[in-house]
């Protein structure tokens, strides 16, 4: 039998039982639709995360911190000569920044300075985290702006505010905030608080004893996203240039600034961010930093963990989606077994006029494949439509909270083709039992059958 004949034969046989065929196919459509939605959601989440990382080039980021345990004179390894250890020990100060910038692959080096402050805009008051960021950072695309522009010099009295902070201030249109004045009330707190662990509790708004002084800045930009993969998953709400920050120090924040940059007797900056031109420099730069006695942090190290988490999520979504497929498979088996009983005599006739067992089997397999193919194509369409609707609804809800429009579902080509192929594969599996049963029909008995 020719391939074309098998296909034509299957369509015409299925067409004779339109209602039953369409109901069975509907089962497959729903199953594949659910699976496709689930998988495309998993894909979408993954794509959004990795795209954001890539867009902000977070994979090119290395954080450098002083290693408290390897202070001078305390060699961790007994046999290591002390001189070498001391000679290579560096402090995270401006000299370090200059030197590290000369290394191959290092595009930018900037201190990661953050301090809490009260932010006052119009009548609103919010507690937030201020990040000191040199103006030159703008060229590395670390900050994605929603409105306005980056400040142009390190001395300006202007700042960039995150749109989430603006929203907390009840500003719906980020553009309207550009050029407006904003007040920062700095806090003088115990310097012991400036370690990563305590910062989080400060941010949660717990009342702490502090004195405050206010500074006025002009908003020049509104940030949509910032690409700082620091040691803490804390988002900075406001970015100010270092010159302005230093002025603040002269007036009031002496102790704070000292804490970060008292170069003589202390440890320098608490952290330095390095921006590399390509991920391949991460390993050599990290090795060098560790040789210099620093601790490093790179998001790339986290990537395997992240990938594993995604894999689990995918497996979970797939398992949920498979429920529909299993039910649809039973539907196909049921339909095919019914069909064999109805066409019992026809199968006998086919055999009497020269159909082999293989021919009979293939006829039933092809019918299953037609159901699987139609189910796959329409299931993909259903999954896509449902996903688009959910995406629109989710985005319209989240837009109220100021989130940018995001595709929460992703339909890569392999998912589309895979859905149809999977549908056909499952249908083929569903056809195994019916096809074997059809091939076993004894023509002598079937021809006597009425």
């Amino acid at each position, binding site marked *: *039998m*020719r391939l*074309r*004949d098998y296909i*034509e*034969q299957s369509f015409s046989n299925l067409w*004779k039982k339109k209602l039953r065929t369409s109901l069975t196919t509907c089962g497959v459509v729903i199953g594949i639709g659910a699976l496709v939605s689930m998988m495309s959601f998993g894909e979408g989440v993954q794509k959004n995360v990795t795209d954001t990382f890539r867009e902000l080039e977070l994979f090119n980021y290395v954080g450098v911190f002083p290693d408290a345990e390897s202070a001078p004179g305390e060699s961790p390894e007994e046999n290591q000569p002390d001189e070498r250890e001391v000679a290579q020990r560096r402090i995270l100060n401006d000299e370090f920044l200059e030197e590290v910038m000369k290394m191959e692959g290092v595009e930018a080096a900037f201190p990661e300075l953050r301090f809490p402050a009260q932010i006052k805009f119009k009548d609103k008051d919010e507690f937030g985290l201020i990040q000191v960021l040199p103006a030159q950072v703008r060229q590395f695309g670390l900050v994605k702006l929603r409105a306005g522009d980056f400040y142009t010099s390190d001395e300006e009295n202007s700042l960039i505010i995150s749109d989430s902070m603006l929203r907390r201030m009840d500003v719906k249109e980020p553009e309207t905030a550009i050029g407006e004045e904003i007040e920062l009330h700095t806090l003088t707190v115990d310097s012991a608080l400036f370690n990563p662990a305590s910062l989080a509790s400060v941010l949660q708004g717990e009342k702490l004893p502090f004195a405050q002084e206010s500074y006025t800045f002009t908003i020049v930009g509104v940030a949509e996203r910032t690409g700082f993969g620091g040691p803490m998953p804390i988002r900075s709400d406001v970015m100010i240039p270092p010159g302005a920050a230093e002025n603040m120090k002269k007036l009031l924040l002496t102790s704070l600034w000292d804490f970060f940059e008292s170069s003589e007797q202390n440890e320098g900056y608490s952290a330095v961010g390095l921006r590399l031109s390509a991920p391949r420099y991460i390993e050599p730069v990290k090795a060098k930093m560790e040789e210099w006695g620093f601790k490093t942090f790179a998001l790339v190290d986290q990537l395997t963990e992240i990938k594993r988490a995604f894999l689990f999520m995918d497996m979970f979504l797939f398992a949920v989606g498979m429920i529909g497929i299993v039910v649809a498979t039973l539907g196909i088996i049921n339909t095919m077994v019914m069909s064999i009983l109805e066409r019992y*005599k*026809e199968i*006998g*006739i*086919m*055999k*009497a*006029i*020269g*159909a*082999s*067992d*293989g*021919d009979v089997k293939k006829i039933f397999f092809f019918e299953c494949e037609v159901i699987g193919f139609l189910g796959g194509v329409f299931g993909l369409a259903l999954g896509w439509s449902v996903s688009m609707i959910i995406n629109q609804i989710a985005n319209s809800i989240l837009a109220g909270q100021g989130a940018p429009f995001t595709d929460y579902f992703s339909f890569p080509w392999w998912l589309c083709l895979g859905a149809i192929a999977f549908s056909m594969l499952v249908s083929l599996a569903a056809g195994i039992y019916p096809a074997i049963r059809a091939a076993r029909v004894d*023509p*002598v008995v079937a*021809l006597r059958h*009425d």
Partner: protein
Amino acid sequence: MDSTALIETENLTKIYSTGKVEVVALKDVSLSVSEGKFLGVTGPSGSGKSTLMNLLGGLDTPSSGKIKVEARPISELNKEELALYRRFQVGMIFQSFNIVSSYTALENVAFPLLFAGVPKKQREHRAKEVLEKVGLYPRRDHRPAELSGGEQQRVAIARALINRPKILLADEPTGNLDSQTSSQIVQTLAELNRNQGLTVIMISHEESLLRQFAHDVVHLRDGEVIEQENIR
């Protein structure tokens, strides 16, 4: 054994076992049919006529004994080879016509060509030719429900001939037909036998009909050949 024989059977035996009971449907049947002959097989119900037909048609396999067609041992073929034998070497017609009710006359006649891998255009062309031969060309687009019993049996004959077999096996082809139509159908078979050299084996319990057209008539009873007579 006759060396010129087209079909030969040798001690052909078929035993059906249903649980503990064994039923001997056919016992030591040895026959020989030369090419171009019209053989009639008759006998009462349960004499083994249909069993003999199913064995000759390759639909069933014997418990013991041999069937040879053109000196080829049919009884030793595997399933796949038997399908090819049924497809190309024998055509069969039945008492209940056994045509597909959802197909038109043309589609029914062309059906065996589907399994032979013949392209659609050729299938239709050949089916039309054969329908013409049995006088049903004008009725080609009708479904079985719209055809008379005689017409349905003609569709079945056309289908049996579509792959140009040498042998036509007819299992009570007139059982569901009135006497006049019966006579016409057997007449058609006799003409095919006479004009095209088709070897016909026909089963019927109507001995008179066989005597009218067949060259030889074999009488079966309880699965055994009790008499072979040469009529013409």
